C-alpha cells in the first residue's frame, strides 16, 4: 500500500531518504506515513505542525502525557481514523502502563474507570467532533467541576492537532501498521516526542 500522492511515497531528498533508511535499520520498521508526511516539503506544513504537536503533547500541562495521548486516541476513535487510533491507543496504553483502562475508555467513555474531570473533558471533545460545536453551558459545566480554563485550552489544542492529522491520514491514505509496528512507534513517541 502506498499513499495516494506519489510525491509522498518517493518525492524526498537524499538526506531524508538516508534518514528513512537509518530508521529502518535501527528499528526494524519502515518510517510510518505520519512521520513521512511531515518530512515532505516541511517548510509548508511539517515543521510548524511538528512544533505545535510536540508543544501540546509534551510541553507543560497539568494533563499528564498519558492523559493527552488518551485524548488523541479518543478523538481519533470518534473520527474513526484507523491509523491514529492504532498509534495513539498503543502510546496511551504504554504511557499509563494500563492497556485495559485505555480500551475501556475507547469502548465506553461513561463506564470506564477514569478520573471524572478527564471523563468530562473527553466527553466535551467527543461532542465537538461529532456535532461540530460545543455550547457555553458545556464549558461552564467543566469549569464548575474544577477543570481549569488552561486544562480546557490544552485539551482543545490536542484535539486540533489530531483532528488535522486524522483528516490527512484518511485523505492521503496512511498505511496501517502491525501491532508490533504501532508498539514500536509508541516507544519512539514517548522517548522522543513529536519533533
Amino acid at each position: 500500500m502506498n499513499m495516494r500522492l506519489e510525491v509522498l511515497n518517493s518525492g524526498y531528498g537524499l538526506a531524508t531518504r538516508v534518514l528513512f533508511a537509518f530508521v529502518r535499520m535501527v528499528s526494524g520498521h519502515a518510517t510510518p506515513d505520519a512521520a513521512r508526511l511531515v518530512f515532505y516539503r516541511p517548510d509548508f506544513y511539517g515543521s510548524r505542525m511538528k512544533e505545535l504537536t510536540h508543544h501540546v503533547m509534551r510541553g507543560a500541562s497539568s494533563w499528564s502525557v498519558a492523559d493527552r495521548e488518551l485524548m488523541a486516541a479518543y478523538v481519533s476513535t470518534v473520527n474513526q481514523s484507523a491509523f491514529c487510533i492504532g498509534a495513539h491507543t498503543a502510546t496511551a496504553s504504554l504511557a499509563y502502563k494500563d492497556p485495559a483502562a485505555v480500551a475501556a475508555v475507547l469502548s465506553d467513555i461513561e463506564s470506564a474507570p477514569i478520573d471524572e474531570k478527564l471523563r468530562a473533558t473527553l466527553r466535551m471533545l467527543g461532542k465537538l467532533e461529532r456535532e461540530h460545536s460545543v455550547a457555553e453551558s458545556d464549558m461552564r459545566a467543566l469549569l464548575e467541576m474544577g477543570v481549569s480554563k488552561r486544562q480546557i485550552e490544552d485539551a482543545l489544542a490536542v484535539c486540533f492537532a489530531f483532528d488535522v492529522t486524522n483528516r490527512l491520514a484518511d485523505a492521503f491514505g496512511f498505511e496501517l501498521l502491525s501491532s508490533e509496528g504501532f508498539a514500536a512507534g509508541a516507544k519512539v513517541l514517548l522517548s522522543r516526542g513529536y519533533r
Partner: protein
Amino acid sequence: MASEFTARNVHNAVVTRVLQGNGEAPHPLRRAAFDNAGLEEPLRRLINKVAAEPTRVTDDDIGAVKRSGLTEDQIFELVICAAIGQSSRLYETALSALDKVSASDPGEHAS
C-alpha cells in the same frame, strides 16, 4: 505578548503559513480549500470530503483532481489547507465558547 509560545499562537502561525506563504497552488485556491467554499468539480468533491467525511476519500477522488490538471504538489497543499481549515473552525468555535464563559468568571483572568 504576541510572540508568547502558546498553542493559540502556534496555531495562528500554521494557518498563516499555509494560506499566505510560498506554494505551488494559487493563494485564492488555498483560501477556498481552507474555507471549503467556492470550488468547482472535481476539486470540490475532494475538499468537501476532507472537511466533512475524510474516511470516505477514495483513490478516484484524488485521481479525478489530478486528471483535471492540478499537480500532486498543488493537491498536497490544498488537502492540507482543507484539513487545517475544518479543524480550525472546530478549535475556534470551542475556544470562543470557553472565552465567553471564562470572561464572566471573576476567578479567571484573560491571558
